[in-house]
């Protein structure tokens, strides 16, 4: 009978079983991994967003700009409120920082007395140039690309701050 058919046949059965299951596991898990890990195909909106008017800005005094932008979130475009800390450096030079601390993403605020940005979570502080002064923050504040159209401030992509 079949089960008396020597070790060779048994060996063949075993390797065939392992091989087929390996192929099927691979054929299922590979697409699954790609599906979960690969970013969506649509490229991100790289347009410039109007954030506000800079004509009232005093030099070297940060101001929080609040504006709306559309964000592609999976299958939805959501319009969300966003902020930026904007500092006027000169007649045509403006810097805009993203509103999150580079440590763990808390919202920081401007400490007028010490002329620095202060994150309430773990007391990271940043200078007006965005550089880390104290605390656990690993890198300087992230900035938006900026562009001026007259007095209008246009914000573009976010650049990571220097470590």
């Amino acid at each position, binding site marked *: *009978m*079949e*089960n008396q058919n020597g070790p060779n046949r*048994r060996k063949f*059965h*075993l390797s*065939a*079983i392992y091989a*087929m*299951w390996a*192929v*099927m596991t691979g*054929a*299922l898990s590979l*697409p*699954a991994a*790609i*599906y*979960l890990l*690969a970013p*969506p*195909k*649509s490229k991100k909106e*790289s*347009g*410039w967003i109007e954030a506000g008017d800079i004509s009232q800005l005093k030099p070297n005094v940060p101001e929080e700009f609040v504006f709306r932008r*559309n964000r592609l979130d*999976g*299958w*939805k*475009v959501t*319009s969300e409120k966003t902020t930026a800390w904007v500092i006027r450096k000169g007649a045509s030079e403006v810097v805009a920082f993203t509103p999150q601390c580079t440590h763990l993403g808390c919202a920081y605020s401007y400490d007028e007395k010490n002329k620095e940005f202060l994150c309430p979570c773990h007391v990271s502080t940043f200078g007006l140039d965005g550089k880390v002064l104290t605390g656990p923050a690993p890198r300087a504040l992230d900035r938006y690309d900026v*562009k*001026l*159209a*007259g*007095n*209008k401030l*246009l914000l573009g992509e976010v650049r990571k701050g220097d470590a």
Partner: protein
Amino acid sequence: MIPRALNWLEERTGFPSAASHFLNEEIPASAGWHQVFGSIALFCFLVQAFTGVLLAMNYAATPGEAYNSVKYIATELTGGRMIRGLHHWGASTMIVVVVFHMIQTFLWGAYKKPREATWIAGVFLLLLTFGYGLTGYLLPWDNRAYWGTVVATQIAASAPFAGPYLTQLLGGEGGIGVVTFARFYAIHVLILPPATMLLIALHVFLVRRHGVSPAPGDETKPKKKFYPQQVFRDTVAIFIAFVILFTLAVAVRVPLERLADPTDTSYIPRPDWYFLFLFQMLKFFQGPLEIVGSVVLPGLAVFGLMLVPFIDRGAMKRVRQRTLALGVVALAALGWTGLTVAAIRSTPPTPIIDVTEMTGPESWQMLSPDELAGVGHYRKEACASCHVGDKKLGPELSTVQKRSKEWLIEHFKNPNVMRPGTIMPPIHLTTAQMSSRAAFLLKLNPDNAKAMEAAPQATVEGAMIYQANNCGVCHQVNGVGMKTGPSLNGVAQRRTREWLEEHFVNPQKVSPGTTMPAYKFSSRDMDRILTYLLSIP
């Protein structure tokens, strides 16, 4: 290393010896290739569970969102089409396999004493499998899903006594909407899977308790072991089923039709192929007899299946001697095939619209109506004759963003005031047209200049008509405009060209009670505006 780890595991859990006990089950000498279907069915269930969980990771279970998220899975995610294909075709494969499993058991008479309970658990598993098909059909929320489910819930509603309660339970009172959707989703992912797992556990437990059904003559032969030979057969069978499923998922695209539209009277609903025979049977029972086809006969069929082991209680016979069983199967197969073929032949062929085949929006499709109309004014005024090309007379426009809109408009009106000495002629347009042209110029940058040129002229003219008629006062496109009327994004997936045209001519007729005024466009303008509307992503 491995033996030590196994030893450790054995002492703590006993799993290795349990697995070995499971694999070394004794099976009758006659066991062979005909008994592989149960294993394939189990494998199919696991594939469905796996791909189902993956789909749920990118799925929003409310009507409109469901559609968008399925579209997102199919078009935006790498491998998304594959996973959806596996789940879709996996459902069909599972039905086929489960039915084959049942036919095999039936032909061999494997349900006989003491295996009646195993058979009945199997009948319930078959019903659960159909339950997945029924509830899962609605979840993409396209026209096919919507209309197929309308028919299914109407059938449930016609059931004697239970009808109204079933309708209430399925949330179908007053039509299919969010409640029905939530119920179907909950049944599909929260009720059916645990129920299936419990029943599979019971089913397998009973198979093990009574052993694999022997054939006459087995009692005199020595028993075999399940492992490795029968496991090898099961694996080969599973592998073949998997290759078929995988090929279907890769090669046959699963369409996603237009968004479910309860007002679409032209849509011909049809169920998935495995329910077509029921669908067809309904045509033979009309008027008061309808419940015979929709409820009574299917109910009797299920009841009859349950009773099979109690009707056929004779001693085990070889398959070839079971002529009656063979006859029943042949008759059922013939009936099923006949009904299915008749159903396919009697449904008029309709083109299947697949929105996943449509490509993603081009850059120009993302422009606001104002900006796109600006492209039109730009072309009409032949701006390119000075501002584009090698011998440029005017400055490069794609860097114009440093100007403000107001500056540009002033510049169009009085070029010499804004830039003394310029050769740019003043442009005579209305302020709105100026403003839209300025809006377009501000959007222009070196990266997208080419893409803007790709905007088809008919579409651009449509946008100009849109702008000239102030459609934006009520409608929104790409986030620009008011929201008094519906947003026009995705209107191509909701409406046909004919519908839209009719809607312009006679809004009250197509959507009674609307505040939309009628528009009498020339046929050329009508064509342009429709082309534009249907191009909005």
